[in-house]
């Protein structure tokens, strides 16, 4: 199978605050087969996500899979606390784009 951009496989890719000090990413796939494919590729693993967002792997605070919803969830520490000096996205809702470009084998 040819590699595909995550954006071309997913039905939802989004980022959002999870409280003032965390940023959480949700990726929802359309079906079980695509979920398995993304899981097998490892692109939503700690190392891969950290690399896409120019972070250290330790800045990823948690990863979850929800097989029943065909979903992945990744949460990172916010670079600055919400609305602290240096804030650029109060709701954290425009930080998802690097995940769209991940290539899924």
């Amino acid at each position: 199978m040819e590699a595909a951009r995550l954006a071309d496989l997913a039905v939802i890719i989004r980022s959002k605050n999870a409280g003032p000090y965390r940023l959480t990413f949700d990726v929802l796939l359309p079906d079980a087969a695509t979920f398995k494919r993304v899981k097998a590729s490892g692109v939503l693993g700690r190392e891969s996500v950290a690399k896409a967002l120019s972070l250290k792997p330790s800045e990823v605070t948690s990863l979850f899979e929800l097989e029943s919803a065909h979903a992945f969830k990744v949460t990172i520490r916010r670079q600055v606390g919400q609305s602290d000096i240096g804030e650029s996205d109060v709701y954290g809702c425009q930080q998802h784009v690097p995940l769209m470009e991940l290539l899924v084998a």
Partner: protein
Amino acid sequence: MTAITVLAPTGTLGYGFGADALKRGMDFKPGVIAVDAGSTDPGPHYLGSGEVLVSRFSYKKELTELMAASRAAGIPLVVGSAGGSGSRPHVDFLVEIVREVARDLRLNRFKLAWIYADIEPARIKKAIAAGEVKDFEAGFALTADLVDSSTHIVAQMGFEPIIKALQSGADVVIAGRACDDAAIAAYPIMQGGHKGLAMHMGKILECGAFSAVPFAMDVMMGFLKGDAFELEPGSIGRRASLTSVAAHTLYERENPFDQHGPGYRVDLNDCRFEQAGERRVRVSGAKFIPESECWIKLEGARRMGFRSICVAGVRCPTMITRIDEILAAAKEEAVRYMKPHDVQVTFHVYGKDGVMRALEPQKKIASHELGLIIEVVASEMDLAHAACHHISGGLLHTHYKGQLNTSGNLAFPYSPSELDAGPAYAFSAYHLMKVRDPYEAFPIHYEDV
């Protein structure tokens, strides 16, 4: 078993709902109208300043519709996290509107309850000294100095104080800061509903019809029936689908399997979703687990200074290619110029990395123009303004290598070019504090209206 029915009119009081959706929802004969009104999500400004999140106009319009509906049906109305932050001024603001609406609508006598969620600084300092405050996710320790410098500190109440108000006969409950799920779950739990399911239902309903397709700030219905609950949007133009509900259980939270409150947690590991009709989803499996200690989550805000901003455009490619070094030099110069006063200078460079800053993977500027916001925070408004103007004036006329245009480097859309944004707030507490019981920090007041 008959269902315990909850009508959640919208995701945030003041953000709107459809009149038809409300009417259709009321036809299900709900036992309560319950709505969340706040969150930390809009930032620390509302908690810090005491200004409410949404306009008075919107609050009054929506409370008028909800009070008319709930009083006509003889069911209680519960509002959680009043006014946005759930702090005392926000609670008082909504309570005053409730009294006004009661007069305007000439409502029959009813009982109003309001619950404050502000925590006295002395109480928190005592807890700090006793080692009964711990960091939640802030990454810094809560100190007595931080407590003293905070303008407001609230804590999230669980469902218990709201149930107490309802059991005391309150027809309208205006609660200060509350766990989003608790404000919605209080009534079903009071009616003997399964606590875990009620809390899970509350967590989904607190965002109104955001768990439906198409999603919107609109009416969502919850039906708690023994060992499961069902969700259905009020508007016939929407439906609850497996995807929309499951997606929502991920929303705005780190751990989708675990939902915490003061003195309990809800375990969602065995949760199941089933389509139960074209527009309805059935959810089961949540487990309520009481904990031996009761910790409440504190949220505090402090004024970090005053903010002045300047918006400008850069079109000349000779400047765009050197933007980083030009801005770095301007910042360094301004910080030196303002001494002995400290100023915090931030540049937001749209067209480069204005949105993602350090997380931006695209390092090369692809845009033919840049949007620049110069932001300064200082201890006084005048100082922030002075530094902001100094930087914008300096950048306007700075000389750099390769420059062809010597008449000015910034295109300002406004005169004056600086906008004073007023006080700037930061979160000062996001910590857990141990309390004796879930009622201790949340005093309830009653009034016959």
